[in-house]
């Protein structure tokens, strides 16, 4: 009963925040898609943090740490904690500024206008869609699994997935970016709070950190250090993983659009400085839950270890509060899902359909949600794993990195170079994944990225491929209606 009430309260709170976000707001596309470019420090931080953290951190990280120990923290957390905020800071400043100057509301629209080519927008839109839809499917699949585990006789996996998607869609439809920023504050605080609580209770249950780690060294010493002979830590694999996990986040369109919604550089800077601290607070307990889960509940094989976090919540908080683990997973999934829905909806409206009528944006969001659920049903009927689908999406995003970063920092990049880079990178990744392109022992993402950079440069050589770039004023004169370039109204979010 407590579980059902907690779930209903969570959903009701999300819908209430969505409704509140809509009330009394200006009805413009910039307000809807970018919160009027007014996200201040706290809202921006939680929007970025919540969007970046998916159920992978709550389920996948403890699951991997269960088998591989503290090495999972060593391989991932430090490089994410430095690389992601550095890249977001480096890309966020020009992206935010250009979004205002060019009146662009979606990432594809930003680069299309910057490079003066609709082809760039189309290729970016296609690539973002290709990699974001599978990522969204993994999110709602996680929600379905989490709800089914708590309410096995009431909710099937498909109904649980539909319910989560429906609630995320409803509040996003109502309040757009502002609604997702507000809900992300609650969701981020919820999943961070739950995992910290479980981490603290874990040490209390084991008699304190000293006793806990002494027991670890006595019973499972192999989980307490980085084994240099393991395949995962071989230098080519280590380097490939580091490149993949760092660059992919900077290429998420749903992260880029958050950066474009920042109120000013000061908000962006404050968010970036908080990011490593929050990441350490999230990853450390996630890894420790997995490591000590291996002591407290040994014998889980393969993917069964993904259930170690919900099991630990039930053990440490008691069965009546086990729903908190489910709510944390839902919060992590929905905080990513809402941003993805909004971003794909904005690109569909702005870059493909070109419709700029009032209220049109909501129709496109609905279309994206329906398409996502249809793909989810196909996924459930297939043999594809969540990990496999995520891996496909993450590697694919990295192929867009040269275009996204050079488009902001190198004036020599042409539309031809950008299109060649994206298509060539994705093609090379596909060939390398199939074994038809030499990888020299690296993961396919490395040759793909190298090719993407090389083609961006080669394609931008000479003058024939260069398209005239319209000045900001000229662009604004041409497209003034919904991509309003007016300055933020000063209304602070958060």
């Amino acid at each position, binding site marked *: 009963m407590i579980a059902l009430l907690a779930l209903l309260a969570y959903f009701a709170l999300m819908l209430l925040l969505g409704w509140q976000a809509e009330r009394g707001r200006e009805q413009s596309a910039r307000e809807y898609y970018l919160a009027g470019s007014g996200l201040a420090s706290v809202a921006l931080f939680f929007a970025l943090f919540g969007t970046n953290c998916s159920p992978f951190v709550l389920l996948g990280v403890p699951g991997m740490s269960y088998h591989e120990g503290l090495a999972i923290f060593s391989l991932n*957390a430090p490089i994410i904690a430095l690389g992601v905020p550095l890249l977001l800071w*480096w890309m966020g400043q020009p992206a935010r500024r250009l979004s205002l100057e060019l009146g662009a509301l979606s990432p594809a629209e930003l680069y299309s206008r910057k490079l003066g080519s609709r082809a760039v927008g189309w290729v970016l839109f296609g690539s973002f869609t290709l990699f974001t839809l599978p990522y969204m499917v993994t999110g709602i699949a996680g929600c379905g699994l989490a709800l089914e585990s708590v309410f096995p006789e009431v909710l099937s996996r498909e109904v649980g997935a539909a319910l989560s998607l429906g609630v995320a869609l409803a509040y996003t439809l109502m309040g757009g970016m502002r609604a997702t920023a507000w809900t992300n504050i609650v969701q981020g605080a919820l999943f961070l709070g739950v995992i910290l609580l479980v981490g603290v209770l874990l040490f209390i249950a084991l008699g304190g950190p000293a006793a806990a780690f002494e027991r670890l060294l006595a019973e499972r010493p192999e989980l307490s250090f980085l084994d240099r002979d393991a395949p995962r830590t071989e230098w080519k694999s280590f380097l490939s993983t580091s490149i993949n996990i760092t660059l992919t986040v900077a290429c998420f369109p749903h992260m880029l659009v958050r950066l474009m919604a920042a109120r000013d550089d000061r908000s962006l800077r404050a968010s970036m400085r908080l990011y490593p601290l929050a990441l350490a607070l999230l990853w450390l307990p996630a890894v420790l839950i997995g490591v000590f889960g291996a002591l407290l509940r040994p014998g889980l094989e393969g993917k069964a270890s993904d259930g170690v976090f919900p099991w630990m919540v039930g053990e440490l908080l008691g069965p009546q509060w086990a729903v908190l683990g489910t709510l944390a997973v839902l919060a992590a999934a929905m905080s990513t899902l809402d941003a993805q829905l909004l971003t794909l909806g904005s690109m569909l409206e702005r870059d493909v359909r070109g419709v700029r009528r009032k209220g049109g944006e909501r129709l496109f969001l609905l279309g994206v949600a329906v398409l996502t659920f249809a793909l989810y049903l196909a996924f459930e009927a297939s043999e594809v794993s969540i990990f496999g689908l995520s891996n496909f999406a993450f590697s694919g995003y990295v192929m867009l990195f040269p275009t996204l970063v050079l488009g902001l920092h190198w004036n020599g990049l042409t539309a031809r170079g950008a299109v060649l880079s994206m298509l060539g990178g994705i093609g090379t990744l596909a060939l390398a994944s199939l074994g038809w392109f030499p990888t020299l022992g690296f993961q396919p993402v490395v040759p793909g990225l190298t090719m993407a950079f090389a083609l961006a440069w080669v394609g931008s050589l000479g003058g024939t491929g260069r398209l005239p770039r319209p000045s900001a004023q000229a662009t604004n004169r041409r497209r003034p209606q919904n991509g309003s370039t007016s300055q933020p109204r000063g209304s602070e979010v958060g």
Partner: protein
Amino acid sequence: MRRLRLLLPLIALLVLHFDFWRESRPQLVLGWLPEELAWRLCWMALALVLLWYWTHSPETEREA
């Protein structure tokens, strides 16, 4: 020169991250913290300092 001041610590941190010369062992630092975890947490503290410096630098802060 200013850009070099930003890049050199970044390169140093990356080298420290890919610490292939370091032999990690199952032992506790200060009697309670695994050596591997202590090393990575120290690295993250250094990274945080670099991040504050980087985001504060006039080179990367065009407007505030």
